[in-house]
């Protein structure tokens, strides 16, 4: 594999060290677009339920690349680059809509819903004047097409025809974790975005870092949603790139936090209206929290009855949009929908739990921008990337870097 970003070498210690230049190197950001996002990775595009009818589209992204996802007249899902073959304009300028074909607003070049150029306006000119030469090839640089695969209503795409099949890329444990959460047809409850003032990798590390959860998020800990003493664990795919962190809803007790005198344990802290935490065990397995991630930028979240998919759009080196789509299932009754809406107070930009996750990556970004050649130490839970029955570990962060290095050729 050829070396990218000349002059950059991964530390000899391996994935127990992360050099801070990975978050601040402009050239690296461009290399990632090519090797990670346009490389043999599977990127989450949207929920199947976001395209409920034939002849609809919605826009999405792979890294920084704008993408159109369509459901054609036969109900088949397609995805292609949101770029006209002619002058490169965006083809779809709206987030979603209905369409039998896609017409570029700039010069009215038309495409079918699979992204094939079907018509060029005034191709033969008017009145014998103008138009394209007879041997011109207007579709010489068409929008790049994605290979699309769907798993339990989650739509993934890849630009690399040599990418492994989706399920092989995910690994059997991750497939099982997805099947568990996506137990029925989806009903979307709404969406919103957070603009993170940080590199995309800092957010993904935050997601994979099961060590921080009880320490940064004191709301979580105080209400015994996520004490590290709770039974739970970490599952890491063989590739290292994908992970599941889970914990049981019931608390097994323990005074570790109190003894350590940590700010997280505030005795006697109770809620006046605890319905934000009232959940039913809809999966029947006692698991109250399951965070699942797929390299590079997909998260599937079950926090009690609050379910969401998250994806990242890498707007820039230090500017990342976190797109949340919150959902339930079509068979939810009114009480279940209300429960999900109440528990959505835990997540999102104003979430009791997740608001800190919007800020923490930015804290690191600001801390390391002038420390490019200094290394972060990632040795919680040892040096490996194996699944474990504890979450006091950074194994899935090391897994992320293991897979990242394999994609980048570091």
């Amino acid at each position, binding site marked *: 594999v050829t070396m990218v970003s000349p002059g950059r070498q991964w530390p000899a210690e391996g994935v127990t060290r992360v050099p801070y230049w990975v978050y601040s190197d402009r050239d690296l950001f461009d290399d990632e677009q090519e090797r990670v996002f346009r490389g043999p990775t599977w990127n989450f595009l949207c929920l199947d339920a976001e395209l409920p009818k034939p002849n609809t589209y919605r826009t999405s992204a792979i890294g920084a690349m704008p993408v159109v996802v369509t459901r054609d007249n036969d109900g088949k899902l397609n995805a292609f680059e949101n770029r006209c073959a002619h002058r490169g304009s965006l083809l779809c300028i709206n987030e979603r809509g209905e369409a039998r074909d896609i017409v570029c607003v700039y010069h009215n070049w038309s495409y079918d819903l699979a992204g094939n150029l079907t018509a060029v306006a005034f191709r033969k000119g008017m009145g014998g004047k103008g138009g394209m030469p007879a041997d011109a090839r207007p579709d010489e640089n068409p929008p790049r097409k994605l290979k699309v695969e769907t798993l339990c209503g989650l739509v993934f795409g890849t630009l690399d025809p040599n990418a492994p099949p989706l399920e092989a890329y995910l690994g059997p444990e991750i497939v099982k974790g997805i099947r568990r959460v996506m137990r029925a047809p989806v009903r979307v409850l*709404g969406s919103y975005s*957070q603009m*993170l003032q940080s590199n995309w990798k800092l957010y993904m590390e935050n997601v994979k870092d099961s060590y921080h959860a009880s320490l940064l998020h*004191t709301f979580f800990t105080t209400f015994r949603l996520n004490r590290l003493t709770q039974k739970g664990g970490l599952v890491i795919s063989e590739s290292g790139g994908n992970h599941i962190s889970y914990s049981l809803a019931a608390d097994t007790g323990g005074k570790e936090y109190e003894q350590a005198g940590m700010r997280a344990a505030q005795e006697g802290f109770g809620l006046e*209206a605890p319905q934000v935490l009232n959940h039913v065990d809809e999966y029947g397995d006692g698991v109250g929290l399951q965070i699942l991630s797929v390299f590079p930028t997909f998260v599937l979240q079950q926090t009690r009855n609050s379910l969401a998919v998250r994806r990242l759009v890498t707007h820039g080196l230090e500017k990342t949009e976190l797109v949340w789509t919150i959902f339930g299932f079509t068979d939810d009754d009114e009480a279940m929908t209300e429960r999900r*809406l109440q528990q959505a107070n835990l997540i999102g*930009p*104003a979430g009791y739990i997740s608001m800190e996750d919007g*800020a923490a990556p930015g804290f690191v970004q600001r801390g390391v921008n002038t420390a490019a050649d200094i290394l972060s130490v990632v040795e919680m839970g040892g040096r490996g990337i194996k699944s474990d029955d504890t979450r006091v570990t950074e194994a899935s962060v090391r897994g992320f870097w293991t897979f990242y290095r394999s994609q980048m050729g570091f």
Partner: protein
Amino acid sequence: VDVATTFKVQELQARYIQALDDDRLEDWPNFFTDTCRYIVTTADNLAQGMPLGMIYATSRAMLRDRVRSLRDANVYEAQRYRHMIAPPVIAPGEGGVVRAQTSFMVVRIMHTGETMMFVTGRYDDRIVLEGPDAPRFVEKTVVLDSRVIDTLLAIPI
């Protein structure tokens, strides 16, 4: 709608934003009735008929919980808001309750001095004007124009 009603609604809105901008968060729940609804959502979710909120409270007790969480549990950088509101458009309702729609802008001032346009939108309010504790909000739907929040939304809008 008569001048007295308009005045009462404007006064309530002015005192509401003043409490938030002065960091008197403990006073904030007192602008609502016990069984109030306070939801922060986006124009896009609303247009699609989607019920999700970024903040979704169905009682004054939930608002008090949020204040306590902001004070004691959540970790976020010190920041203030400055609300600017337009005159409300008021429509009569029933049982001493009026509807008011009020445009707002919120500027966020970080402890670093960084000052940014944080959110814009409108309040869709139902306000009870008569009674011992009136006026108060029975319902406040905060409809954000954008679906994107910079970093996080800690202090209520």
